């Protein structure tokens, strides 16, 4: 058998307590999307041929997009260092509880220097360390949690791909840059949460 419930030693008193939902081990959407798009292309008069742009994956364009991102970040760094005031720390999902006790939480738009978060050597080092231990950490999670976290990490990867691809078309777009920084920060948050969660599973 496929190992449903494998590793899950929780006890239940009724079959109705079993969860009907099981997350697949991998994201099945890309193949579904590819089949749907293939059918839509094959039937041009069919439903949905026009209204919304298809999110195709133009592989060669992504290399250009990545180069455009690097170039735009480099320009942003130059502008930031030359013209803008000293950078404020990236907003992330930092706790407003500590940062602004007694005052409403404020939201700072990211400066160009916030974009350099991604190329910061400390960030790269910390991320690499978390990624190296990710598989082992995921294995330590309860199976239902593991599947959900993998789906979330896949969502983050897709978000990064989509944002970088869109930045390729519009490199100076501040909205996309802000969302990209947010996404990288959210990825770090997830990697850190998984790290802590797997420690918790070994005895709180």
């Amino acid at each position, binding site marked *: 058998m496929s190992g*449903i419930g494998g590793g899950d*030693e929780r*006890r239940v008193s009724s079959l109705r307590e079993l969860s009907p*939902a*099981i997350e697949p*081990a991998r994201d099945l959407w890309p*193949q579904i999307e590819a089949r749907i798009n293939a059918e839509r292309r094959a039937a041009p008069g069919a*439903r949905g041929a*026009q209204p919304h742009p298809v999110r195709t994956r133009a592989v060669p364009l992504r290399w250009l997009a990545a180069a455009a991102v690097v170039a735009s970040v480099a320009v942003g760094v130059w502008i930031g260092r030359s013209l803008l005031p000293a950078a404020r720390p990236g907003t992330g999902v930092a706790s407003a509880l500590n940062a602004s006790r007694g005052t409403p939480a404020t939201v700072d738009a990211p400066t160009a220097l916030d974009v350099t978060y991604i190329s910061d050597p400390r960030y790269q080092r910390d991320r690499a360390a978390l990624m190296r231990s990710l598989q082992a950490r995921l294995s330590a999670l309860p199976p239902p949690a593991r599947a959900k976290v993998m789906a979330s990490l896949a969502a983050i990867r897709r978000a990064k791909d989509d944002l970088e691809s869109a930045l390729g078309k519009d490199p100076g777009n501040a909205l996309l840059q802000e969302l990209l920084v947010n996404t990288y920060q959210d990825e770090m948050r997830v990697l850190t949460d998984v790290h802590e969660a797997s420690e918790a599973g070994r005895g709180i």
Partner: protein
Amino acid sequence: MTQAQAEDTRIDWEAALVERARAGDPRAFERLYREHAGRVYGLCLRMTRDAHLAEDCTQETFINAWRALPRFETRSSLSTWLHRIAVNVSLAKRRKASPVEPRLEDEEGTGGALEWTLETPVEIQEIEAAIGALPDGARDALVLHALYGYSHGEAAQMLGVAEGTCKAQLHRARKLLRERLNVEVG
């Protein structure tokens, strides 16, 4: 917002996504996929007992659903509709892979409704293994009725059998689970 209002909001939101998907928006359909993939895959996996086959079934379910969206009636339950498709796909894949089980005799008046409670708690992995070891027909009926909450009639209709046959399969499932888990199943 009350629980009922939240549920209504969710249903409205889902209906809006269906409309957009029907109009050809693949992003809307992807959101519907994300919402329902777990339950569809869980159904396919328990019916086929093979992860690769279950992945194929899940993908085919959603592709068939995409094709059939123009015919879906928004006032029906999307999740029930997807499960019907998933059951059909799973049965077809299974028939290709293995011989057909002998038919069970219809059973009427087999006693009161079962709540599927266990006399003593059992580990989830043990129960899932026991369900996986059931013969196909018994397992299908048990999964749809006890795990997914469908009535005898609904489960029978999905499986393409008479309601009496479905009830017979459920009682067979109960008997076999009782033997395998060594606990009373009520």
